[in-house]
Protein backbone atom coordinates (compact mmCIF):
# COMPACT_ATOMS: atom_id res chain seq x y z
CA UNK A 1 0.00 0.00 0.00
CA UNK A 2 1.48 3.30 -0.98
CA UNK A 3 1.07 6.39 1.16
CA UNK A 4 2.17 8.73 -1.64
CA UNK A 5 -0.89 10.41 -3.14
CA UNK A 6 0.78 11.28 -6.45
CA UNK A 7 2.82 9.10 -8.77
CA UNK A 8 5.77 10.42 -10.75
CA UNK A 9 3.48 10.39 -13.81
CA UNK A 10 0.83 12.41 -11.94
CA UNK A 11 3.43 15.02 -11.03
CA UNK A 12 4.83 15.19 -14.56
CA UNK A 13 1.33 15.77 -15.96
CA UNK A 14 0.61 18.55 -13.46
CA UNK A 15 3.95 20.26 -14.08
CA UNK A 16 3.29 19.98 -17.83
CA UNK A 17 -0.10 21.67 -17.43
CA UNK A 18 1.58 24.48 -15.50
CA UNK A 19 4.39 24.75 -18.04
CA UNK A 20 7.17 24.39 -15.47
CA UNK A 21 9.82 21.74 -15.02
CA UNK A 22 9.94 21.20 -11.27
CA UNK A 23 7.87 21.65 -8.10
CA UNK A 24 10.63 23.87 -6.72
CA UNK A 25 9.81 26.42 -9.41
CA UNK A 26 6.48 27.01 -7.62
CA UNK A 27 8.44 28.30 -4.63
CA UNK A 28 10.76 30.47 -6.71
CA UNK A 29 9.38 33.68 -5.17
CA UNK A 30 10.53 32.65 -1.70
CA UNK A 31 14.17 33.64 -1.09
CA UNK A 32 16.43 30.58 -1.09
CA UNK A 33 17.71 31.23 2.45
CA UNK A 34 14.16 31.02 3.82
CA UNK A 35 13.46 27.66 2.18
CA UNK A 36 14.00 24.46 4.12
CA UNK A 37 16.81 22.22 2.91
CA UNK A 38 16.21 18.52 2.40
CA UNK A 39 14.88 16.52 5.33
CA UNK A 40 17.61 14.42 6.91
CA UNK A 41 15.61 11.32 7.76
CA UNK A 42 16.92 7.86 8.65
CA UNK A 43 15.99 4.99 6.32
CA UNK A 44 12.47 3.61 6.63
CA UNK A 45 11.91 0.77 9.11
CA UNK A 46 9.78 -2.31 8.62
CA UNK A 47 6.80 -2.70 10.92
CA UNK A 48 8.47 -5.04 13.40
CA UNK A 49 11.57 -2.84 13.73
CA UNK A 50 9.41 0.25 14.06
CA UNK A 51 7.34 -1.31 16.86
CA UNK A 52 10.57 -2.23 18.72
CA UNK A 53 11.92 1.28 18.25
CA UNK A 54 8.74 2.84 19.64
CA UNK A 55 8.72 0.42 22.58
CA UNK A 56 12.30 1.42 23.39
CA UNK A 57 11.36 5.07 23.27
CA UNK A 58 8.27 4.53 25.44
CA UNK A 59 10.40 2.90 28.15
CA UNK A 60 11.93 6.33 28.78
CA UNK A 61 8.54 7.54 30.07
CA UNK A 62 8.16 7.44 33.85
CA UNK A 63 4.78 5.78 34.38
CA UNK A 64 5.78 4.33 37.77
CA UNK A 65 5.61 7.63 39.68
CA UNK A 66 3.19 8.34 42.49
CA UNK A 67 1.96 11.76 41.45
CA UNK A 68 0.92 14.75 43.50
CA UNK A 69 1.06 17.02 40.46
CA UNK A 70 -2.05 18.82 39.27
CA UNK A 71 -1.59 22.46 38.26
CA UNK A 72 -4.28 22.45 35.60
CA UNK A 73 -4.07 18.79 34.50
CA UNK A 74 -5.59 16.15 36.75
CA UNK A 75 -5.39 12.38 37.17
CA UNK A 76 -8.79 10.80 37.51
CA UNK A 77 -10.21 7.35 37.11
CA UNK A 78 -11.66 7.09 33.61
CA UNK A 79 -14.54 4.59 33.33
CA UNK A 80 -14.18 1.95 30.60
CA UNK A 81 -17.27 3.34 28.87
CA UNK A 82 -15.26 6.37 27.72
CA UNK A 83 -12.68 4.54 25.62
CA UNK A 84 -15.24 1.99 24.47
CA UNK A 85 -17.40 4.68 22.87
CA UNK A 86 -14.51 6.89 21.78
CA UNK A 87 -12.86 4.07 19.86
CA UNK A 88 -15.88 3.45 17.62
CA UNK A 89 -14.74 4.22 14.09
CA UNK A 90 -17.62 6.61 13.47
CA UNK A 91 -16.22 8.93 16.13
CA UNK A 92 -12.55 8.05 16.28
CA UNK A 93 -11.52 8.59 12.69
CA UNK A 94 -13.77 11.40 11.60
CA UNK A 95 -12.76 14.99 11.14
CA UNK A 96 -15.17 17.95 11.36
CA UNK A 97 -17.72 17.08 8.69
CA UNK A 98 -17.82 19.61 5.89
CA UNK A 99 -21.50 19.07 5.33
CA UNK A 100 -22.18 18.77 9.05
CA UNK A 101 -25.89 18.04 8.97
CA UNK A 102 -25.26 14.74 7.20
CA UNK A 103 -23.50 13.57 10.40
CA UNK A 104 -26.42 13.65 12.79
CA UNK A 105 -24.66 11.39 15.30
CA UNK A 106 -21.66 13.68 15.60
CA UNK A 107 -23.88 16.74 15.97
CA UNK A 108 -25.99 14.99 18.59
CA UNK A 109 -22.93 14.21 20.74
CA UNK A 110 -21.83 17.85 20.51
CA UNK A 111 -25.32 19.00 21.44
CA UNK A 112 -25.31 16.67 24.44
CA UNK A 113 -21.85 17.93 25.43
CA UNK A 114 -23.14 21.52 25.28
CA UNK A 115 -26.19 20.59 27.37
CA UNK A 116 -24.10 18.85 30.07
CA UNK A 117 -21.64 21.75 30.37
CA UNK A 118 -24.55 24.21 30.52
CA UNK A 119 -25.97 22.24 33.45
CA UNK A 120 -22.59 22.05 35.17
CA UNK A 121 -21.83 25.78 34.81
CA UNK A 122 -25.36 27.11 35.32
CA UNK A 123 -25.07 29.14 32.11
CA UNK A 124 -27.27 29.21 29.01
CA UNK A 125 -25.11 28.59 25.95
CA UNK A 126 -21.99 26.49 25.47
CA UNK A 127 -19.67 26.41 22.47
CA UNK A 128 -18.85 23.14 20.74
CA UNK A 129 -15.43 23.36 22.53
CA UNK A 130 -12.00 24.89 21.96
CA UNK A 131 -8.39 23.66 21.91
CA UNK A 132 -7.77 23.93 25.64
CA UNK A 133 -8.49 25.95 28.76
CA UNK A 134 -5.90 28.57 27.83
CA UNK A 135 -7.43 29.19 24.38
CA UNK A 136 -10.93 29.34 25.87
CA UNK A 137 -9.78 31.91 28.45
CA UNK A 138 -8.22 34.11 25.78
CA UNK A 139 -11.41 33.84 23.69
CA UNK A 140 -13.51 34.85 26.71
CA UNK A 141 -11.33 37.91 27.29
CA UNK A 142 -11.89 38.91 23.65
CA UNK A 143 -15.64 38.25 24.04
CA UNK A 144 -15.74 40.77 26.89
CA UNK A 145 -14.02 43.32 24.64
CA UNK A 146 -16.56 42.84 21.84
CA UNK A 147 -19.58 42.80 24.14
CA UNK A 148 -18.67 45.98 26.05
CA UNK A 149 -16.82 47.77 23.24
CA UNK A 150 -14.08 48.49 25.74
CA UNK A 151 -10.40 47.65 25.35
CA UNK A 152 -8.98 46.80 28.77
CA UNK A 153 -9.12 43.43 30.51
CA UNK A 154 -8.02 42.68 34.08
CA UNK A 155 -6.72 39.19 34.76
CA UNK A 156 -5.75 37.80 38.15
CA UNK A 157 -2.09 37.04 38.73
CA UNK A 158 -3.38 33.89 40.41
CA UNK A 159 -4.86 32.63 37.14
CA UNK A 160 -3.08 29.61 35.59
CA UNK A 161 0.23 30.70 34.10
CA UNK A 162 -0.52 29.20 30.67
CA UNK A 163 -3.93 30.90 30.50
CA UNK A 164 -2.35 34.27 31.22
CA UNK A 165 0.38 33.64 28.65
CA UNK A 166 -2.10 32.60 25.93
CA UNK A 167 -4.32 35.61 26.64
CA UNK A 168 -1.30 37.91 26.50
CA UNK A 169 -0.44 36.45 23.09
CA UNK A 170 -4.00 37.05 21.83
CA UNK A 171 -3.80 40.67 23.03
CA UNK A 172 -0.41 41.42 21.48
CA UNK A 173 0.03 43.86 18.64
CA UNK A 174 -3.32 45.62 18.85
CA UNK A 175 -4.97 48.36 20.82
CA UNK A 176 -6.13 46.02 23.60
CA UNK A 177 -4.68 46.18 27.10
CA UNK A 178 -4.27 43.26 29.48
CA UNK A 179 -3.33 44.01 33.10
CA UNK A 180 -2.70 41.66 36.02
CA UNK A 181 -4.31 41.98 39.44
CA UNK A 182 -2.09 41.28 42.49
CA UNK A 183 -2.82 38.65 45.13
CA UNK A 184 -3.00 38.74 48.93
CA UNK A 185 -1.18 36.65 51.55
CA UNK A 186 -4.15 34.28 51.79
CA UNK A 187 -3.70 33.41 48.11
CA UNK A 188 -6.79 35.19 46.81
CA UNK A 189 -6.92 38.02 44.30
CA UNK A 190 -6.68 41.51 45.82
CA UNK A 191 -10.26 42.80 45.39
CA UNK A 192 -9.33 46.26 46.74
CA UNK A 193 -6.88 46.54 43.85
CA UNK A 194 -9.63 45.33 41.50
CA UNK A 195 -11.95 48.04 42.80
CA UNK A 196 -9.29 50.73 42.26
CA UNK A 197 -8.61 49.60 38.69
CA UNK A 198 -12.33 49.44 37.89
CA UNK A 199 -12.75 53.02 39.18
CA UNK A 200 -10.44 54.45 36.49
CA UNK A 201 -13.08 56.18 34.36
CA UNK A 202 -10.54 57.10 31.68
CA UNK A 203 -9.78 53.46 30.99
CA UNK A 204 -13.02 51.49 31.35
CA UNK A 205 -12.67 47.74 31.87
CA UNK A 206 -14.25 45.21 29.49
CA UNK A 207 -13.76 42.07 31.55
CA UNK A 208 -12.35 40.67 34.79
CA UNK A 209 -10.92 37.12 34.76
CA UNK A 210 -10.43 35.05 37.93
CA UNK A 211 -9.69 31.35 38.40
CA UNK A 212 -11.80 29.11 40.67
CA UNK A 213 -9.93 27.43 42.28
CA UNK A 214 -7.02 29.67 41.29
CA UNK A 215 -3.46 28.68 40.36
CA UNK A 216 -2.55 28.30 44.05
CA UNK A 217 -5.55 25.98 44.56
CA UNK A 218 -7.22 28.69 46.62
CA UNK A 219 -10.94 29.51 46.40
CA UNK A 220 -11.60 33.06 45.26
CA UNK A 221 -14.41 35.34 46.46
CA UNK A 222 -16.11 35.01 43.07
CA UNK A 223 -19.49 36.54 43.94
CA UNK A 224 -17.88 39.71 45.30
CA UNK A 225 -15.52 40.00 42.32
CA UNK A 226 -18.50 39.58 39.95
CA UNK A 227 -20.44 42.26 41.81
CA UNK A 228 -17.53 44.73 41.54
CA UNK A 229 -17.06 43.99 37.83
CA UNK A 230 -20.75 44.47 37.06
CA UNK A 231 -20.95 47.71 39.06
CA UNK A 232 -18.30 49.10 36.68
CA UNK A 233 -20.06 47.78 33.56
CA UNK A 234 -17.50 45.02 32.98
CA UNK A 235 -18.17 41.34 32.33
CA UNK A 236 -17.00 38.72 34.81
CA UNK A 237 -15.19 35.63 33.50
CA UNK A 238 -14.74 32.57 35.73
CA UNK A 239 -11.99 30.12 34.74
CA UNK A 240 -13.00 26.92 36.51
CA UNK A 241 -11.83 23.35 37.05
CA UNK A 242 -14.98 21.46 35.95
CA UNK A 243 -14.93 18.58 38.46
CA UNK A 244 -14.97 21.15 41.28
CA UNK A 245 -18.38 22.35 40.06
CA UNK A 246 -19.94 19.22 41.56
CA UNK A 247 -19.23 20.85 44.95
CA UNK A 248 -18.65 24.56 44.35
CA UNK A 249 -21.34 27.00 43.25
CA UNK A 250 -21.94 27.00 39.49
CA UNK A 251 -20.56 30.18 37.87
CA UNK A 252 -24.02 31.17 36.60
CA UNK A 253 -25.16 31.34 40.22
CA UNK A 254 -22.53 33.84 41.38
CA UNK A 255 -22.91 36.16 38.42
CA UNK A 256 -20.28 34.98 35.94
CA UNK A 257 -21.19 36.21 32.44
CA UNK A 258 -18.77 33.77 30.84
CA UNK A 259 -17.29 30.57 32.23
CA UNK A 260 -14.21 28.90 30.74
CA UNK A 261 -12.13 25.96 31.84
CA UNK A 262 -9.89 23.06 31.01
CA UNK A 263 -12.04 19.99 30.38
CA UNK A 264 -9.19 17.45 30.58
CA UNK A 265 -10.31 16.33 34.04
CA UNK A 266 -13.56 15.06 32.48
CA UNK A 267 -12.44 11.68 31.23
CA UNK A 268 -9.42 12.68 29.15
CA UNK A 269 -6.19 10.88 30.00
CA UNK A 270 -2.98 12.71 30.83
CA UNK A 271 -0.88 12.20 27.74
CA UNK A 272 2.11 14.53 27.56
CA UNK A 273 0.27 17.80 27.15
CA UNK A 274 -2.76 17.05 25.04
CA UNK A 275 -5.07 16.98 23.28
CA UNK A 276 -7.10 18.88 25.82
CA UNK A 277 -10.56 20.42 25.84
CA UNK A 278 -11.43 24.11 26.13
CA UNK A 279 -14.78 24.75 27.81
CA UNK A 280 -16.68 27.97 27.17
CA UNK A 281 -20.16 28.83 28.43
CA UNK A 282 -21.98 32.15 28.51
CA UNK A 283 -25.22 33.94 29.26
CA UNK A 284 -27.79 33.71 26.46
CA UNK A 285 -27.59 37.40 25.56
CA UNK A 286 -23.88 36.99 24.72
CA UNK A 287 -24.52 34.20 22.20
CA UNK A 288 -23.55 36.35 19.19
CA UNK A 289 -20.12 36.86 20.74
CA UNK A 290 -19.49 33.17 21.46
CA UNK A 291 -16.49 32.00 19.39
CA UNK A 292 -16.40 28.78 17.38
CA UNK A 293 -19.14 26.37 16.53
CA UNK A 294 -22.56 25.95 18.09
CA UNK A 295 -24.87 23.03 17.54
CA UNK A 296 -28.62 23.53 17.90
CA UNK A 297 -31.62 21.25 17.95
CA UNK A 298 -34.50 21.71 15.54
CA UNK A 299 -37.07 19.73 13.59
CA UNK A 300 -36.84 18.77 9.93
CA UNK A 301 -39.60 19.17 7.32
CA UNK A 302 -41.22 15.94 8.53
CA UNK A 303 -41.26 17.10 12.14
CA UNK A 304 -38.41 14.81 13.24
CA UNK A 305 -35.78 15.92 15.73
CA UNK A 306 -32.62 17.07 13.97
CA UNK A 307 -29.33 18.74 14.90
CA UNK A 308 -27.76 21.63 12.98
CA UNK A 309 -24.83 23.98 13.08
CA UNK A 310 -26.43 27.20 14.21
CA UNK A 311 -25.67 30.94 14.17
CA UNK A 312 -23.08 30.26 11.49
CA UNK A 313 -22.82 33.94 10.53
CA UNK A 314 -20.58 34.51 13.58
CA UNK A 315 -17.94 32.35 11.97
CA UNK A 316 -15.00 33.37 9.83
CA UNK A 317 -15.96 31.60 6.61
CA UNK A 318 -18.98 33.91 6.43
CA UNK A 319 -18.08 36.98 8.45
CA UNK A 320 -14.38 37.21 7.58
CA UNK A 321 -12.45 39.73 9.69
CA UNK A 322 -15.50 40.53 11.82
CA UNK A 323 -16.01 36.92 12.90
CA UNK A 324 -16.31 36.14 16.62
CA UNK A 325 -13.10 34.12 16.38
CA UNK A 326 -10.41 33.19 13.86
CA UNK A 327 -10.96 29.56 14.85
CA UNK A 328 -14.09 27.65 13.94
CA UNK A 329 -13.10 24.07 14.56
CA UNK A 330 -13.58 22.20 17.84
CA UNK A 331 -12.24 19.28 19.89
CA UNK A 332 -15.03 16.88 18.99
CA UNK A 333 -13.38 13.66 20.21
CA UNK A 334 -12.30 15.18 23.55
CA UNK A 335 -15.74 16.75 23.96
CA UNK A 336 -17.21 13.30 23.36
CA UNK A 337 -14.94 11.87 26.08
CA UNK A 338 -16.23 14.52 28.50
CA UNK A 339 -19.81 13.75 27.46
CA UNK A 340 -19.47 10.02 28.07
CA UNK A 341 -17.57 10.64 31.33
CA UNK A 342 -20.26 12.97 32.70
CA UNK A 343 -23.09 10.74 31.52
CA UNK A 344 -21.46 7.68 33.11
CA UNK A 345 -20.80 9.33 36.48
CA UNK A 346 -23.94 11.41 36.73
CA UNK A 347 -24.25 14.28 39.23
CA UNK A 348 -23.79 12.03 42.28
CA UNK A 349 -20.75 10.26 40.86
CA UNK A 350 -19.10 13.56 39.95
CA UNK A 351 -19.83 14.87 43.44
CA UNK A 352 -18.10 11.80 44.89
CA UNK A 353 -15.03 12.37 42.70
CA UNK A 354 -14.74 16.00 43.82
CA UNK A 355 -15.45 15.25 47.48
CA UNK A 356 -12.98 12.33 47.64
CA UNK A 357 -10.25 14.49 46.09
CA UNK A 358 -10.90 17.22 48.66
CA UNK A 359 -10.80 14.68 51.51
CA UNK A 360 -7.53 13.19 50.26
CA UNK A 361 -6.00 16.66 49.94
CA UNK A 362 -6.97 17.46 53.54
CA UNK A 363 -5.29 14.21 54.64
CA UNK A 364 -2.20 15.20 52.64
CA UNK A 365 -2.09 18.59 54.35
CA UNK A 366 -2.31 16.95 57.79
CA UNK A 367 0.35 14.34 56.96
CA UNK A 368 2.79 17.04 55.84
CA UNK A 369 1.99 19.21 58.87
CA UNK A 370 3.15 16.30 61.06
CA UNK A 371 6.66 16.75 59.65
CA UNK A 372 6.60 20.54 59.88
CA UNK A 373 5.67 21.33 56.28
CA UNK A 374 3.08 24.07 56.21
CA UNK A 375 0.92 25.70 53.58
CA UNK A 376 2.00 28.93 51.89
CA UNK A 377 -1.45 30.52 51.76
CA UNK A 378 -4.09 30.75 54.47
CA UNK A 379 -7.15 30.75 52.18
CA UNK A 380 -9.56 27.84 51.76
CA UNK A 381 -8.70 25.23 49.12
CA UNK A 382 -10.42 22.27 47.52
CA UNK A 383 -7.97 19.58 46.40
CA UNK A 384 -4.79 21.48 45.63
CA UNK A 385 -2.57 23.71 47.79
CA UNK A 386 0.96 25.11 48.00
CA UNK A 387 3.43 24.18 50.73
CA UNK A 388 6.80 25.67 51.62
CA UNK A 389 9.64 23.14 51.46
CA UNK A 390 13.26 24.05 52.25
CA UNK A 391 15.27 24.12 49.02
CA UNK A 392 12.23 23.06 47.04
CA UNK A 393 13.98 22.47 43.70
CA UNK A 394 16.44 20.00 45.22
CA UNK A 395 13.65 18.36 47.24
CA UNK A 396 11.54 17.98 44.08
CA UNK A 397 14.45 16.27 42.27
CA UNK A 398 15.15 13.92 45.18
CA UNK A 399 11.47 13.00 45.49
CA UNK A 400 11.57 12.07 41.80
CA UNK A 401 14.47 9.69 42.50
CA UNK A 402 12.34 8.10 45.21
CA UNK A 403 9.44 7.59 42.79
CA UNK A 404 7.28 10.62 43.68
CA UNK A 405 6.19 13.45 41.42
CA UNK A 406 6.20 16.15 44.09
CA UNK A 407 3.87 18.66 42.49
CA UNK A 408 4.77 21.86 40.65
CA UNK A 409 7.59 24.23 41.54
CA UNK A 410 5.55 27.43 41.77
CA UNK A 411 8.75 29.46 41.47
CA UNK A 412 8.82 28.46 37.78
CA UNK A 413 5.49 30.22 37.26
CA UNK A 414 6.34 33.20 39.49
CA UNK A 415 10.11 33.75 39.15
CA UNK A 416 9.83 37.34 40.41
CA UNK A 417 7.98 36.40 43.63
CA UNK A 418 10.51 35.48 46.37
CA UNK A 419 7.63 34.22 48.54
CA UNK A 420 7.07 31.35 46.08
CA UNK A 421 10.69 30.34 45.41
CA UNK A 422 10.39 27.35 47.75
CA UNK A 423 6.72 26.60 47.12
CA UNK A 424 5.46 23.24 45.83
CA UNK A 425 1.90 23.08 44.50
CA UNK A 426 0.49 19.70 45.53
CA UNK A 427 -2.70 18.00 44.43
CA UNK A 428 -4.75 14.98 45.42
CA UNK A 429 -7.64 13.37 43.56
CA UNK A 430 -9.93 10.42 44.19
CA UNK A 431 -7.21 8.04 42.97
CA UNK A 432 -4.69 9.21 45.57
CA UNK A 433 -4.56 6.54 48.32
CA UNK A 434 -3.92 6.85 52.06
CA UNK A 435 -0.90 4.59 51.58
CA UNK A 436 0.56 6.89 48.91
CA UNK A 437 0.15 9.85 51.24
CA UNK A 438 1.98 8.05 54.06
CA UNK A 439 4.83 7.02 51.77
CA UNK A 440 5.06 10.56 50.36
CA UNK A 441 5.29 11.97 53.89
CA UNK A 442 8.08 9.50 54.72
CA UNK A 443 9.99 10.29 51.54
CA UNK A 444 9.59 14.01 52.21
CA UNK A 445 10.91 13.50 55.75
CA UNK A 446 14.10 11.95 54.33
CA UNK A 447 14.45 14.62 51.68
CA UNK A 448 14.22 17.60 54.00
CA UNK A 449 16.26 16.15 56.90
Amino acid sequence: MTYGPHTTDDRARMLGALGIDSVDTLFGDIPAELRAGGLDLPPALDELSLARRLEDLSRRNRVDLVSFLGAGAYRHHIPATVDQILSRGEFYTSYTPYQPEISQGTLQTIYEYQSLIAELTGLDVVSASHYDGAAATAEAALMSVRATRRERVLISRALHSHYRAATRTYFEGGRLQLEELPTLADGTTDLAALERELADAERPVAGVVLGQPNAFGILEPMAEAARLAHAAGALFVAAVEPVSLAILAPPGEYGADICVGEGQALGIALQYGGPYLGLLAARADLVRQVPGRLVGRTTDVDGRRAYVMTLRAREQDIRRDKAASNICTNQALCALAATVYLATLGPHGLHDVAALGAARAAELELALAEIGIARVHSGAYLNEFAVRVPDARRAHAELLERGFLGGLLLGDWYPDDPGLTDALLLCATEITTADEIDRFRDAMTEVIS
Partner: protein
Amino acid sequence: MQVPDDLRYTPDHEWLRVDGDEAVIGITEFAAGELGDVVFVELPAAGTRLDAAQAFGVIESVKTASDLYAPAAGEVVALNEALADRPELVNDDPYGEGWMIRVRLDDPAAVAGSDRLMDPAAYRSLLEAD
Protein backbone atom coordinates in the same frame (compact mmCIF):
# COMPACT_ATOMS: atom_id res chain seq x y z
CA MET B 1 -39.67 47.74 -5.48
CA GLN B 2 -40.27 50.72 -3.25
CA VAL B 3 -37.87 53.66 -3.37
CA PRO B 4 -39.60 56.38 -1.30
CA ASP B 5 -39.27 59.94 -2.57
CA ASP B 6 -38.43 61.53 0.80
CA LEU B 7 -35.18 59.59 1.37
CA ARG B 8 -31.56 59.78 0.25
CA TYR B 9 -29.61 56.64 -0.68
CA THR B 10 -26.05 55.30 -0.63
CA PRO B 11 -24.47 53.03 -3.23
CA ASP B 12 -24.33 50.39 -0.45
CA HIS B 13 -28.15 50.44 -0.23
CA GLU B 14 -28.58 52.32 3.05
CA TRP B 15 -31.22 55.03 3.23
CA LEU B 16 -31.26 58.28 5.21
CA ARG B 17 -34.28 60.32 6.25
CA VAL B 18 -33.35 63.85 7.37
CA ASP B 19 -35.42 65.18 10.24
CA GLY B 20 -34.19 68.65 11.29
CA ASP B 21 -30.59 68.25 12.43
CA GLU B 22 -31.04 64.52 12.91
CA ALA B 23 -31.45 61.64 10.48
CA VAL B 24 -32.85 58.12 10.62
CA ILE B 25 -30.89 55.37 8.84
CA GLY B 26 -31.87 51.93 7.55
CA ILE B 27 -31.38 49.65 4.54
CA THR B 28 -33.46 49.62 1.39
CA GLU B 29 -36.11 47.13 0.37
CA PHE B 30 -33.78 45.99 -2.40
CA ALA B 31 -30.98 45.27 0.11
CA ALA B 32 -33.32 43.45 2.49
CA GLY B 33 -34.58 41.31 -0.40
CA GLU B 34 -31.07 40.44 -1.53
CA LEU B 35 -30.02 39.45 2.01
CA GLY B 36 -32.99 37.18 2.59
CA ASP B 37 -34.41 36.59 6.04
CA VAL B 38 -32.60 38.87 8.49
CA VAL B 39 -31.75 37.07 11.73
CA PHE B 40 -29.66 39.64 13.59
CA VAL B 41 -28.69 43.29 13.42
CA GLU B 42 -25.65 44.46 15.38
CA LEU B 43 -25.88 48.20 16.08
CA PRO B 44 -23.56 50.72 17.74
CA ALA B 45 -24.23 52.09 21.22
CA ALA B 46 -25.87 55.51 21.61
CA GLY B 47 -23.14 58.15 21.79
CA THR B 48 -20.95 56.46 19.15
CA ARG B 49 -19.33 58.90 16.69
CA LEU B 50 -19.61 57.94 13.03
CA ASP B 51 -17.76 59.28 10.01
CA ALA B 52 -19.44 59.18 6.63
CA ALA B 53 -19.01 55.73 5.03
CA GLN B 54 -17.73 54.27 8.31
CA ALA B 55 -18.96 50.75 9.14
CA PHE B 56 -21.43 51.13 12.00
CA GLY B 57 -22.90 47.68 12.36
CA VAL B 58 -23.45 44.28 10.84
CA ILE B 59 -26.58 42.70 9.45
CA GLU B 60 -26.86 38.93 9.42
CA SER B 61 -29.26 36.92 7.32
CA VAL B 62 -29.63 33.20 6.94
CA LYS B 63 -27.35 33.52 3.93
CA THR B 64 -24.66 36.00 4.85
CA ALA B 65 -23.39 38.81 7.06
CA SER B 66 -22.81 42.32 5.71
CA ASP B 67 -21.42 45.54 7.09
CA LEU B 68 -23.62 48.60 7.43
CA TYR B 69 -22.10 51.95 6.41
CA ALA B 70 -23.00 55.38 7.75
CA PRO B 71 -24.52 57.55 4.98
CA ALA B 72 -23.35 60.73 6.75
CA ALA B 73 -21.20 61.81 9.70
CA GLY B 74 -22.77 62.30 13.12
CA GLU B 75 -23.38 60.91 16.57
CA VAL B 76 -25.73 58.00 17.26
CA VAL B 77 -28.57 59.26 19.47
CA ALA B 78 -30.90 56.26 19.33
CA LEU B 79 -31.08 52.71 18.01
CA ASN B 80 -34.02 50.56 17.11
CA GLU B 81 -34.11 48.22 20.09
CA ALA B 82 -37.08 46.32 18.65
CA LEU B 83 -34.71 44.72 16.13
CA ALA B 84 -33.05 42.72 18.92
CA ASP B 85 -36.15 40.56 19.28
CA ARG B 86 -37.68 41.10 15.85
CA PRO B 87 -34.92 41.40 13.24
CA GLU B 88 -37.48 40.39 10.61
CA LEU B 89 -38.83 43.98 10.77
CA VAL B 90 -35.98 44.82 8.37
CA ASN B 91 -37.59 42.55 5.76
CA ASP B 92 -41.20 43.38 6.61
CA ASP B 93 -40.96 47.16 6.79
CA PRO B 94 -37.49 48.37 5.74
CA TYR B 95 -38.45 52.05 5.54
CA GLY B 96 -40.57 52.10 8.71
CA GLU B 97 -40.36 49.80 11.70
CA GLY B 98 -37.17 48.28 10.30
CA TRP B 99 -35.14 51.50 10.83
CA MET B 100 -31.76 51.03 12.50
CA ILE B 101 -30.21 54.12 14.03
CA ARG B 102 -30.97 57.81 14.55
CA VAL B 103 -27.99 60.14 14.18
CA ARG B 104 -27.43 63.80 15.09
CA LEU B 105 -25.83 65.05 11.89
CA ASP B 106 -22.55 66.96 12.08
CA ASP B 107 -23.63 69.09 9.13
CA PRO B 108 -27.31 68.72 8.15
CA ALA B 109 -26.92 71.24 5.32
CA ALA B 110 -24.19 69.13 3.70
CA VAL B 111 -26.51 66.16 3.17
CA ALA B 112 -28.17 67.74 0.15
CA GLY B 113 -24.83 68.37 -1.56
CA SER B 114 -23.19 65.08 -0.57
CA ASP B 115 -21.44 63.22 -3.39
CA ARG B 116 -22.12 59.97 -1.63
CA LEU B 117 -25.88 60.34 -1.26
CA MET B 118 -28.23 59.79 -4.18
CA ASP B 119 -31.71 61.14 -4.72
CA PRO B 120 -34.49 58.58 -5.37
CA ALA B 121 -34.21 58.91 -9.14
CA ALA B 122 -30.47 58.22 -9.09
CA TYR B 123 -30.94 55.24 -6.78
CA ARG B 124 -33.70 53.85 -9.04
CA SER B 125 -31.30 54.07 -11.97
CA LEU B 126 -28.66 52.25 -9.94
CA LEU B 127 -31.09 49.41 -9.26
CA GLU B 128 -32.12 49.24 -12.90
CA ALA B 129 -28.48 49.18 -13.99
CA ASP B 130 -27.92 46.19 -11.70
